[in-house]
């Protein structure tokens, strides 16, 4: 799937839409012409290695940083121009939780809720209590945040994002600092929110996390969007190849070449030679065997290998611990 192509949901209906979104810090392009298209109701994974521009993009989505060029549209409205209408409908966790250490968890949420211009004071206590209950922090509500563990702060940050009904949740690395149990809970929470119609935009550098909870994903690399679409589309975009085990490797090669494929030799096995060919979709894999057999090639083994999402992710972002430049 090409970076620029969009899911066919109709642009007006997109929950997040950016066009040519660019952020330059001095000489460095932190975000380079990103066209995000997040369909409503999706759980959208925003993948990329550390330093690939995910958080900077999120800051621009929320109006914390101004774009050098390009536009942002959230819930059908221009950002940051209409932040007063947009942001009350958006819950956010940006670059980790941040709270007043000298206030209790509950007092922190009261404070941040009071900061919103349109929140209803009459329901504040009930909403704060419900949000704390929902992330499993009710027992620590009166404790000062100073005494919270990293995981508890992370939960409190998620509770803050859930203080009101939200149409969009933007969660930047929501499982950072959480134990496996907490990670599982976040996953459940995201799914239950999505069931209720909230669009969830989750950034992560962990592919398994995205595979487990997202319906869609986009991949960032060095400030550029290198892929985006539904997980199925992203998987399809990866290459498939046929692996043929045959004692008649020479004949098989001719057949494959005749079909327009580019066979390559792989390590031979005891039963015969092994040929590998990338399938470009012009010939269905199942027809390949028929062609071979028709040409008198004996086939001992035939497998179609699909590139895993992980292979694809690594292919897109590069491997290893190199932080993107």
């Amino acid at each position: 799937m090409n970076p620029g192509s969009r899911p066919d949901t109709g642009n007006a209906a997109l929950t997040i839409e950016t066009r040519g979104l660019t952020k330059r810090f001095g000489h460095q392009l932190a975000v380079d012409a990103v066209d995000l298209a997040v369909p409503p109701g999706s759980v959208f994974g925003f993948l990329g290695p550390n330093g690939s521009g995910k958080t900077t993009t999120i800051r621009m989505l929320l109006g914390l940083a101004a774009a050098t060029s390009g536009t942002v549209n959230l819930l059908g409205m221009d950002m940051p121009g209409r932040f007063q209408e947009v942001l009350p409908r958006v819950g956010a966790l940006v670059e980790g939780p941040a709270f007043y250490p000298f206030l209790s968890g509950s007092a922190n949420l009261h404070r941040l809720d009071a900061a919103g211009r349109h929140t209803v004071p009459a329901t504040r206590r009930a909403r704060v209590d419900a949000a704390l209950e929902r992330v499993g922090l009710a027992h620590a509500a009166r404790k000062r945040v100073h005494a919270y563990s990293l995981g508890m702060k992370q939960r409190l940050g998620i509770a803050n994002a859930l203080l009101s009904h939200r149409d969009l949740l933007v969660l930047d690395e929501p499982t950072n600092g959480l134990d496996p149990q907490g990670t599982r809970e976040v996953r459940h929470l995201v799914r239950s929110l999505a069931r209720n119609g909230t669009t969830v935009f989750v950034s992560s550098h962990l592919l398994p996390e995205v595979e487990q909870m997202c319906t869609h994903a986009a991949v960032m690399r060095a400030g550029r969007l290198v892929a985006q679409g539904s997980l199925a589309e992203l998987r399809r975009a990866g290459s498939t190849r046929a692996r043929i085990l045959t004692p008649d490797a020479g004949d098989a090669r001719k057949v494959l070449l005749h079909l327009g494929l580019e066979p390559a030799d792989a390590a031979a096995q005891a039963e015969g030679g092994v040929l590998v060919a990338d399938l470009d979709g012009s010939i269905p894999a199942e027809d390949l065997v028929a062609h071979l057999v028709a040409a008198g090639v004996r086939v001992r083994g035939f497998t179609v290998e699909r590139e895993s999402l992980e292979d694809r992710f690594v292919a897109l972002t590069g491997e290893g611990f190199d932080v993107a430049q």
Partner: protein
Amino acid sequence: MPSSVPAEVPGAPAVPDLALPRRSGLSLMVSELRVLFGRRRTWALLLALAAIPILIAVAVRLSSSVPAGRGPAFLDRITQNGLFVAFTAMLVSVPLFLPLTVGVVAGDTIAGEANMGTLRYLLVAPAGRVRLLLVKYAAALTFCIAAPLTVAAAGAAAGAALFPVGPVTLLSGDVIQPGEAGLRMLLIAAYLAVSLAGLSAIGLFLSTLTVVPVGAMAATVVVSVVSQVADQLPQLEWLHPWLFSHYWLGFGDMLRQPVLWDAFGRNALLQTGYIAVFGALAYARFTTRDVLS
């Protein structure tokens, strides 16, 4: 996050009620004052200010006598009338202690939030940058009112506890009753609060420049010292009427009968100018700044 908890938060409106009339900054203002005056640091600042008159009262009580005309103004009158502890303490705290505490509070306004990271969450709430700036300044002004009041109250209390209290002789020679002297103290506290308003605006602006609150605090205090030093240099006489600290010690007119309002008025006008200039600078900076902390 147990699944048994209902998905919808009870009491939350299905959609944010945008039909509600736009609310003032009141909710945020109350919250801001709670955070400011609920903080141990703020109490430490006020306690330090309260310690000044107590220290003066105790020192005078312990020493046999203060020779007339030595030490800060009014000091020699304390033994006859405890209320002068408050006047002396207010005078003593003007050059350094009040600007120091105000510098801490005003320098912390935006930089402190940025440093904790809470600034991004306030803005996403959304607090609105202009509204947040106004609320922060209003809270700093509240501290400017609280600080001299603390000195006055602690001074009156310490003076009354250690010395006799009686009618007060004003600078104009008239004598007023202790009750009216209390009113004059409030008047001086008001004068000092106005005096500190300009410095608060400078602190607010400096606070929008950095994410290191200590830097903004120190810079604000330094600015106040520089202004006072410049006010002492005869070579800079042309500049003196424009320095925000120029009228800081002019509250003696509050101790005349009738009260002379000239200094009060000129001071208020000057401070308004500083509020306008540095408020505008803070606005220009804060509304365009990228919040990256």
